[in-house]
């Protein structure tokens, strides 16, 4: 049995906020694919749970005619993938979501959970960063919205207050329309593995020149990270093999991969450069570019 001391089931967002405020130190549980494993490991801080699994208010996905996309935090990856695929939306997020765990895990695990977990390796993080996704948080004190990029605070840490719940992710039309995107997860196995490096790119072109390029990595810094300086530098540049080579040679300046038992710093740097080339090239091609 899991060492759960207190369990509360929330039937609405409002009730979840109330339960969090009433029971300080409580943790939210949605899909449970991370929380139950922490509990099983005997990690402290998870003894009091507020269950928000399958709340109707958190499981909606809307794509408005003007292209605004809103995804509830409790949407499972399987549902997210099916929705995006059927509408031909956000290929990079489809690829990121599809590389999480295995089918059974994706049937339970939620987008909100993957982000709130705060892991530098979260497979949905890099795609959300390149689509400039924003996260909506709610508590009894009110609602607020922050970019996902700023929501990350450090390894395993996000700026989520004890009484707050993530309710939704939003992506603006201009962040994904007329955009080519791609995500690639480099790991030792094809499934059920943690990324050695993850890389997402989203690209808009005009006359085969870069109108905008957004590039983000996981496991390449203490938090999932956008390469902002590089992104500025490539605006307006004509698409060419030379540009791709330049991007690959510049990319490490903003990143700080570390040594771990999974992979050495040197190896991670090699993968980062290699993925800059492959992932940006593919995003450019998907945006209609000629390479």
């Amino acid at each position, binding site marked *: *049995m899991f*060492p*759960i001391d207190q369990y509360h089931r929330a039937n609405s967002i409002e009730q979840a906020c109330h339960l969090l405020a009433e029971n300080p130190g409580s943790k939210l549980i949605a899909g449970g*694919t991370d929380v*139950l*494993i922490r509990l099983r490991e005997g990690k402290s801080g998870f003894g009091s749970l507020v269950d928000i699994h399958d709340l109707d208010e958190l499981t909606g996905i809307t794509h408005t005619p003007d292209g605004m996309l809103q995804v509830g935090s409790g949407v499972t990856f399987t549902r997210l993938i099916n929705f995006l695929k059927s509408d031909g939306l956000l290929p990079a997020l489809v690829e990121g979501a599809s590389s999480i765990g295995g*089918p059974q895990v994706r049937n339970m695990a939620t987008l909100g959970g993957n982000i709130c977990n705060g892991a530098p390796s979260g497979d949905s993080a890099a795609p959300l960063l390149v689509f400039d996704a924003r996260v909506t948080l709610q508590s009894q004190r009110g609602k607020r919205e922050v970019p996902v990029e700023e929501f990350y605070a450090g390894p395993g840490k996000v700026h989520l207050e004890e009484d707050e719940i993530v309710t939704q992710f939003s992506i603006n039309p201009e962040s994904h329309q007329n955009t080519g995107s791609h995500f690639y997860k480099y790991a030792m196995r094809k499934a*059920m593995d943690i990324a050695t490096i993850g890389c997402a790119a989203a690209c808009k072109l005009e006359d085969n020149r870069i109108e905008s390029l957004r590039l983000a990595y996981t496991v390449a810094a203490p938090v999932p990270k956008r390469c902002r300086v590089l992104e500025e530098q490539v605006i307006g540049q004509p698409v060419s093999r030379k540009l791709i080579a330049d991007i690959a040679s510049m990319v490490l300046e903003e990143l700080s991969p570390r040594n771990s038992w999974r992979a050495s710093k040197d190896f991670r740097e090699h993968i980062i450069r290699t993925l800059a080339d492959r992932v940006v090239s593919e995003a450019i091609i998907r945006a209609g570019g000629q390479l």
Partner: protein
Amino acid sequence: MKQIIQCQLNGKPVELVVDVRQSLLEALRSHGLTGCKEGCGVGECGACTVLIDEVPVDSCITLAIRAEGRVIRTIEGESINGELSPVQQAYVDAGAVQCGFCTPGLVMKTTSYIEGLAQSAGGCCQSGSNGINRDDIRREHAGNLCRCTGYQTVVDAVEKSIQYYSGQK
């Protein structure tokens, strides 16, 4: 922290006494359904796979109380009056069962996979012509580990399952 929950278990409505702290795997096994196995206990090996409302999940990382009001299928409900389900028969015929520990989980995963294929093909699931290749089968079963077979015979079994299932229709 006991609770009584109601659900449909292998086609029959049941009441289960569960502890809030229990995993669905623990609840099912203490109810006598020892077909689902605990392999890793952390959702990596798939030996504990059961279907909740036809969706395959790892029962070791699912709270038992989540079964409330749901339709649960485990390996025990798959053979009817001693006759194996098409998927079970396919696993036997393909020689995809060695030590057998992963088999209940794999059979449940394959079952939901081929039933889903049949549904998306409008009730007609034809092997070969529906574009399913061995890579698709491997990707679909990536959440189930098997340390005996090397997976070749498991993939064979899934291909056979598709044939048998469509033949049965």
